[in-house]
């Protein structure tokens, strides 16, 4: 049981936190798309099994464009 409690707590801070059963709000998700709803529902059913951590966001895709292993081609 203790382990599941940890998951509930994690879930509250996780990207896919949802209202059903976890005691958290959907507000952070904004207006959810259909896919998000499916995912959020999926997560509520996953309770006790999967916690997806929240990416910080804001990373720019250009940073991952030219990165190579020859010379440091990215990172600027």
């Amino acid at each position: 049981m203790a382990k599941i409690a940890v998951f509930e707590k994690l879930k509250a801070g996780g990207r896919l936190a949802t209202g059903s059963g976890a005691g958290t709000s959907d507000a952070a998700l904004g207006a959810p798309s259909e896919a998000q709803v499916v995912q959020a529902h999926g997560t509520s059913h996953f309770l006790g099994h999967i916690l997806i951590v929240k990416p910080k966001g804001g990373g720019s895709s250009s940073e991952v464009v030219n990165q190579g292993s020859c010379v440091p081609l990215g990172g600027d």
Partner: protein
Amino acid sequence: MSPLIRQYKDIVAYKLPQGALIAFHARNLEVAEISEELWEAFVSERVPVQSDFQSLQSALSPQSALDVWNNVDSPSVRDQDLGSEVKTLTINVTQICNLHCHYCAAGGDGTYGDPIRQISIEKTFPQIRFFMDKLKPGQKFSFIFLGGEPLLYPEAIRGIGQYALSLEKAKNIQVSFRIITNGTLIDQRFVDLMEGLSPSITLSMDGDPATNDLVRPQKNGRGSSEQALLGLDVLLKNRKSFGSILIHSVFNRKNLNVVQAYRFFQQFAVDGFDFTFDVTEKDEQANLVFIEQMKKIAQLAFTAGGESELRRIAFFDGIFSTLDAQVRKVNHCGSGKSLLSIDSRNQIFSCPLMVSHKGEQVGTGIELNLQKLEPLQAPLIGMNNCGRCWARNLCGGGCLYNHKATTGDAHTKHPTYCDRTRSLIFEAISYYKQTRAEGAFHGEDSGI
């Protein structure tokens, strides 16, 4: 002790030595912690379910949960888009070098088998205009100056840089510069020449002076460390004149002491470190040692300064950036797509290390051989047959030059490459999990 690994379709999970269970969804770029029950579901029998809402309702068992998670697509992730223009040019301003590094990928002596003292700046201008003309206002364009040792001809860097800046103003394109140098020729004259360009610098040095002198000697056989460190000192004293300053070290069976190098470089106020494995090295034992050493420096960095210190190491920064951006990296690099390389004869290649390979030439001057470039336009993870590899969207199919040098074919991976890549990506993911779940993790329970 290495972690236990289990994979189910697009989901890979691993058990860290301390018992934590971390999972990664390869398609969705999702990092998760999973329960013991779900971990067991990776190896238990299952009845497959669909990802419709009905089955979600019944997805209460760990087996079903795993299936549903695998089937659902994350709405926030997208494929990397390199666009249809070249946005990075590497330019060999010279093809001679004052050092004789043992592993030199530029033909063993910085010449690529074709020693040329100085590029023609006049012939380079039209090439720059040709590529920059294709960009829309607001786009970015970056130049990477290479050699040989590019500081043997810093006037070319200045000339080309100033020309690019004049186009930048006219076309509203953001231009940036990086110079890859051995550091031995950095002096006040160089600093003055770079005025207005604010180039970023990557200084190549492979460890403490004793180690570096062995692998990166001068032409006369003497070590190069003293000069390189003097150069670094000049750079750091003129910090405002430069963009980011990185130290780049290459490791192979002759030099595997990444930890020692990392500890030595700690004393310098640089922005980061790029520690890479020699692109031609395929020794299994050396590969394993390198992986372990990289894990150790990750731990040292993370213990000393958390995420920001860890991300001073380029590899880890790259994985964190990709996970945060939620962009599937379907190309390891922009080779032949968004990146082209100009040699000192103004010939064009798809990658800086392919410069000596006649068959790989894709143009001259402002003439591009589109037939040669066409096959390079597909995503590398497909071209390199990465299939269901769980790391594909973080690795991007790997370095074509590395594959060619180790297997003879640019699209065939050597097992050491994939082992190394996956091991280090695992490591990065576990730190990502720790930092992004901060405060909620550490296994505390509420006593229920």
